[in-house]
């Protein structure tokens, strides 16, 4: 299905990442936004609040982030594409209901414009230190999908992509951007509506009384049931069976959790999206995501000028982690370097997948600004030795 | 049930008759129905259901006025009344 022309501001714009993300959501057909102000994400809510009343959407400034996350799940179960945005402290508050969305298998999109932490940290300055929280922040065992845009243009595109993934896999999807990308203003080209592909929600084609909310078959994603149509279905955050009824035992837990994990793991090849430059025949690969991948480029160019055979990987989806590709490359290269605005979070995954086949290193940073390209260059030179 | 005054149309009122149905296996023996039946139709029986509770039993058949109070106050959806005329009508229509 294509986007609706009235939802798409086709043309060239000068937008920051947050406004671009809001436009992406509107183009994707988002019509409910529940959010709570928090720096540096608020521009998304502001733009949505400005745009929604004129296009039949509803923006609600909720009383807190707990309510925001719960409300977007309620609205999504009501059949409306929903989204929220936040940053570190709000992300922590949303984690419980993020888990509810995972457990209920409810599509929605949550944007985390990362700032420096822990706690209140650096409200106005960038960080990428919520990456492991995105992966494991809610309790229990589950898989997530997290995207990391590196520019306002990509903030627009990945927001649409996030809605598509959330509808396709019937789960909340995270956009893990950062203050830099969120507040960086660049040219954003919004294509015409017929160039934007949307994945629409799959509802059951069975009649009321014959359909259950979780018809897991181990292969396809079960279609959802619409409210208000007589299906009278039940869904819960408790461990449940195909009917959505709570079942408190190990067998039901195995089936339920297995479904949440398998739907991402088994479709990892479809979900994972990487950009690679010069990785074939490289001795060293620099991995990164979001703003850090842009900062790494001058350092890579400098190293290449020194005659180092160096390639780059930019993770557009950070979760699920591109495990297969990293294992494969680790066997061919001498070293892999992770550049991220924390002291080694996604690095742990890279190191795990490298499994001793090559040297690994992280260019760590406490956040508050981006890396100096020279710091990255130094680490590259170190691992070459 | 005592009236504080005699209703003016008492000669025209027909006291309805009810038939109490008890779903014994669902009962948890709370005794709400026994306590609040205005006609004292019920008491807890001596026998046990399979969960070990004493379900109620009708001790004054024919005295139920189909007020539905037992049905409404039962927390376990285990007792209900049907109006005797309705029951008979349904039987007649089905036979």
């Amino acid at each position, binding site marked *: 299905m294509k986007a609706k022309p009235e939802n798409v501001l086709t043309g060239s714009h000068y937008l920051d990442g947050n406004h671009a993300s809001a436009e992406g959501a509107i183009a994707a057909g988002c019509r409910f936004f529940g959010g709570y102000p928090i720096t540096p994400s608020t521009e998304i809510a502001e733009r949505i609040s400005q745009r929604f009343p004129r296009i039949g959407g509803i923006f609600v400034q909720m009383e807190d982030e707990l309510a925001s996350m719960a409300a977007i799940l309620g609205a999504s179960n009501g*059949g409306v594409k929903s989204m929220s945005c936040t940053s570190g402290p709000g992300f922590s508050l949303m984690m419980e209901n993020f888990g509810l969305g995972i457990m209920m298998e409810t599509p929605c999109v949550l944007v985390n414009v990362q700032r420096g932490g822990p706690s209140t940290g650096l409200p106005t300055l960038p960080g990428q230190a919520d990456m492991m929280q995105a992966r494991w922040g809610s309790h229990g065992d589950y898989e997530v999908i997290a995207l990391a845009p590196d520019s306002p243009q990509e903030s627009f595109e990945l927001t649409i992509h996030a809605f598509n993934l959330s509808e396709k896999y019937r789960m909340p999807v995270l956009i893990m951007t950062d203050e830099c990308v969120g507040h960086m203003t660049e040219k954003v080209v919004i294509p015409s509506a017929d160039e934007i592909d949307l994945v629409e*929600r799959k509802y059951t084609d069975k009649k009321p009384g014959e359909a259950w909310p979780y018809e897991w078959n181990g292969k396809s994603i079960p279609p959802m049931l619409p409210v208000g149509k007589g299906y009278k279905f039940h869904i819960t955050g408790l461990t449940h069976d195909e009917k959505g009824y709570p079942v408190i035992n190990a067998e039901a837990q195995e089936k339920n959790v297995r479904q949440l994990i398998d739907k991402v793991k088994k479709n990892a090849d479809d979900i994972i999206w990487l950009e690679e430059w010069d990785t074939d025949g490289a001795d060293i690969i620099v991995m990164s995501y979001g703003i850090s991948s842009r900062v790494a480029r001058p350092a890579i160019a400098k190293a290449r000028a020194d005659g180092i055979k160096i390639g780059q990987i930019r993770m557009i989806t950070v979760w699920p982690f591109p495990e297969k590709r990293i294992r494969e490359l680790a066997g061919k290269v001498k070293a892999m370097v992770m550049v991220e605005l924390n002291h080694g979070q996604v690095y742990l995954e890279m190191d795990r997948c490298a499994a001793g086949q090559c040297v690994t290193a992280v260019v760590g940073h406490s956040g508050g600004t981006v890396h100096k390209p020279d710091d990255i260059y130094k680490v590259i030179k170190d691992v070459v030795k | 049930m005592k009236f504080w005054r005699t209703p003016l149309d008492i000669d025209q009122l027909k006291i309805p008759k009810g038939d109490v149905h008890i779903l014994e296996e669902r009962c948890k023996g709370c005794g709400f129905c026994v306590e609040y039946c205005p006609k004292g139709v019920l008491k807890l029986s001596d026998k046990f259901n399979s969960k070990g509770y004493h379900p109620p039993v009708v001790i004054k058949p024919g005295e139920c006025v189909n007020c539905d109070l037992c049905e409404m106050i039962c927390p376990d959806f285990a007792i209900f009344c049907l109006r005797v005329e309705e029951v008979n009508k349904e039987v007649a229509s089905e036979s």
Partner: protein
Amino acid sequence: MSTSVEPAVKKEHPMEKILRMDRIPHIWCPTCGLGTVVTALATALDESEIDLNKVAIVSGIGCTGRVAGYMKLDSFHTTHGRAIPFAFGMHVARPDLKTIVFSGDGDLVSIGGNHLIHTARRNADLMVICVNNFIYAMTGGQVAPTTPITAKSSTSPFGNFEHPFNLPLLAASSGAVYVARWTALHIRRLTKAFKEALNKRGFSFVEVIAPCSTLYARRNKLGTGLDLMKFYHDNCVIKHGCDLKEVDIDYQSKIIVGKFVDIEKPTYIDCLNKGYKQVFGDKYKPYGGGDGNNGN
């Protein structure tokens, strides 16, 4: 041809059409009042002839949180305290549905207290049923923000010495347009209150005092749930429209019940539509819910 009365008539409880009979018997203890409150809601839904396809019910966590699972409606069992915001999102997405929140005192006024006051402030068209058993029952009888002073619980073993919430006052002062309190014993009045709340546009709040036998009654040596029902019978005073400052509940003293608030006020969506209409004029299309994109 049948001659006996019994086989000809299906032995089906009249509320079975509104309950998930495949989930009954429920998990609640003997002499717990929750089942009675569920019957009252089922009866109210049945008698108000509302289209049951157009009713959604949302619960939080706790004993009362299990209600959503027993009602044959589109039902959602959410996280602790978040039933109201979840229901609010559902309502805003689908204003054509009647969304009911059915949860307990701990869920709605302790962990979810902020959502209660804010959603009442917005006057969202939700019906909130708060079953108050004075205790956290599911977790084993801990002190709640509704536990009366001196009542014992597993975490107030010497008695509770904090002031409890006055729920009708809280709801009314936050902006609810319908506020009532009844007990599980006032089954007909409760059913009537549910019917009124179902037909009320705006935020309606019904507090239902219900017996918790296993934890509240046992720990305070008050007998069983039946003894608590008898206590309600002897100690409840009906005072419709009374000053809500007077409806505090003290330990084992009189309980004032009745319909306290029933006013008209524009709802959340009414206010949005009116406000935007003033700003945008005739260009503004009144908000009416889902855009039909998603199969609804």
